[in-house]
């Protein structure tokens, strides 16, 4: 992922990227293409190289921003109607750091509106199609990011992961994705979904590329008080036990696709050959993780999305006529009624339900206690093993439209990815070939907090 070898130029890399974006238009990947700016920046990088100046660690590398990342003078609408027309006046810390190292943003890519979804079908711009089969979903919510990397439109793409939004689309499209430790990378300038779960991460074509991206973007940020002190690359949790676990209950799940199961068994055998001890873990509380997640996450969504009112930025309704309400009340109500997608409304309503006075103890408080038990279960597991190898999702990419009218079926996509977010752990999704039908399969390796770098090393051994 470097052009420092002088065999190519930034301009030719960006031109190739723009050409590829054009060729793959019918996958519906990009929501905005920043052709002129990208070419201008590429020329500036080439000039720097010619003059012998340091162009940065990512000089000339074309990348895409998930459209819930703010970057100056580009739209950042999170694929949501209510944020259309919003052109960002600021840079997210991540975009700023990438630009500083010479990476070149060629555009913004599609997601489920506000990152609510597991297929990218909830986007205001319509679904992104799977890189290997256009009749299937890209996964989500970062579907655009995954397909942009899989189809070589860009070298890497940013993503956000609240319950699997990086790992699941990575596995559906055969690319690498990292969901870092909670707090590893600044979230300043990224549209908030569920604040106790959201993390920023990346899609790329190798674990080594993810490592480079982490080293450039991780660290304390004055603009985000929930960033951890710098640890990546210097103060990581080591994986010393030479022991990897697998989860008995996941392997026994009836929902688990047999080809994913056998891919996982093959990798465990490979690790055993390399001298790792393989440990069967029983983690019975994880069965409740998805239920806890679909209480905690909508509750935080309802709070975070209460700010969208049509006053300060984004879409504003034209419809302000009614006899029984003031124009201001109607402005709020109609902007939100017209601006949110059905899935946004479902999550806001579930959130307000579980937080309402009669139901708080039965739902929200109980979910918060379940979260403690899930964290305890991971802590116990990491006393015995360095890392845990699991599927990302129980199945490969499903058909477009297959689950969109059944929210619970869609939520079940996240059953193996959400425990990681509830516990704030790092996890890396990596490809393990294709099934008989030619669809990519993926696994994830989960580690203790701050073991991100060592997980990437382990991924290299595994991939």
């Amino acid at each position: 992922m470097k052009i420092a070898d002088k065999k190519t130029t930034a301009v030719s890399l960006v031109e190739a990227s723009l050409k590829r974006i054009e060729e793959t238009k019918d996958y519906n990947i990009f929501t905005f293409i920043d052709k002129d700016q990208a070419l201008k920046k590429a020329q500036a990088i080439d000039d720097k190289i010619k003059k012998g100046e340091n162009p940065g660690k990512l000089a000339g590398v074309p990348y895409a921003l998930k459209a819930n990342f703010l970057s100056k003078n580009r739209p950042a609408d999170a694929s949501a109607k209510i944020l259309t027309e919003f052109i960002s006046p600021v840079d997210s810390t991540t975009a700023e750091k990438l630009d500083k190292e010479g990476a070149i943003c060629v555009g913004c890519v599609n997601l489920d509106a506000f990152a609510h979804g597991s297929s990218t079908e909830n986007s205001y711009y319509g679904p992104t199609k799977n890189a290997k089969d256009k009749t299937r979903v890209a996964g989500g919510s970062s579907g655009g990011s995954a397909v942009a990397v899989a189809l070589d439109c860009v070298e890497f793409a940013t993503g956000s992961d609240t319950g699997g939004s990086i790992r699941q689309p990575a596995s559906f499209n055969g690319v690498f994705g990292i969901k870092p430790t909670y707090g590893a990378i600044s979230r300043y300038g990224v549209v908030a979904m569920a604040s106790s779960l959201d993390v920023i991460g990346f899609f790329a074509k190798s674990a080594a590329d993810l490592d480079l991206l982490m080293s450039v973007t991780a660290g304390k940020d004055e603009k985000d008080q929930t960033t951890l002190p710098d640890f990546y690359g210097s103060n990581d949790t080591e994986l010393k036990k030479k022991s990897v676990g697998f989860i008995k209950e996941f392997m026994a799940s009836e929902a688990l696709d047999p080809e994913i199961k056998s891919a996982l068994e093959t990798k465990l055998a490979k690790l055993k050959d390399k001298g790792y001890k393989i440990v069967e873990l029983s983690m019975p509380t994880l069965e409740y993780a998805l239920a806890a997640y679909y209480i905690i996450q909508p509750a935080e969504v309802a709070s975070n999305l209460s700010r969208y009112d049509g006053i300060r930025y984004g879409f504003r309704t034209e419809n302000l006529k009614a006899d029984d309400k003031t124009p201001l009340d109607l402005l709020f109500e109609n902007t939100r009624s017209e601006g949110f997608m059905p899935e946004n409304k479902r999550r806001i309503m579930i959130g307000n339900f579980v937080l309402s006075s009669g139901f708080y103890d039965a739902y929200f408080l109980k979910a918060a206690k379940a979260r403690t038990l899930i964290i305890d279960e991971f802590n116990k597991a990491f006393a015995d093993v360095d890392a845990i190898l699991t599927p990302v999702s129980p199945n490969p990419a499903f058909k477009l439209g297959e689950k969109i009218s059944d929210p619970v079926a869609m939520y079940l996509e996240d059953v193996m990815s959400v425990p990681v977010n509830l516990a704030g752990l790092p996890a890396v999704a990596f490809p393990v070939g294709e099934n008989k039908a030619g669809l990519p399969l993926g696994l994830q390796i989960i580690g203790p907090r701050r073991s991100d770098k060592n997980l990437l090393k382990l991924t290299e051994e595994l991939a």
Partner: protein
Amino acid sequence: MEVTKEEITHLASLSNFSLGAEEITKLKADLENILRYISKLDELDVKGVEPTYQVFEMENVWRPDEIIAQDADREALLNLAKDSEDHQIKVPKVL
């Protein structure tokens, strides 16, 4: 668990949006299904367990009460609003 149409309308009003008749019917069925699924937690014994609300290991992050430079100026922010006048965002009639 059954959710009445009135409860759906009430939740929508708490959420500051309104729903059409078709949306109400669909959301009623969806919410009932989702609540049935999340009620799975009833099986779990959480007696004596402390709740976890966040997984950030730091507490009370202090910093001097100084402005950290943002690169957006007042005009850029005002320009984002649909309507403004005299350097202020304009809203429709409140009363």
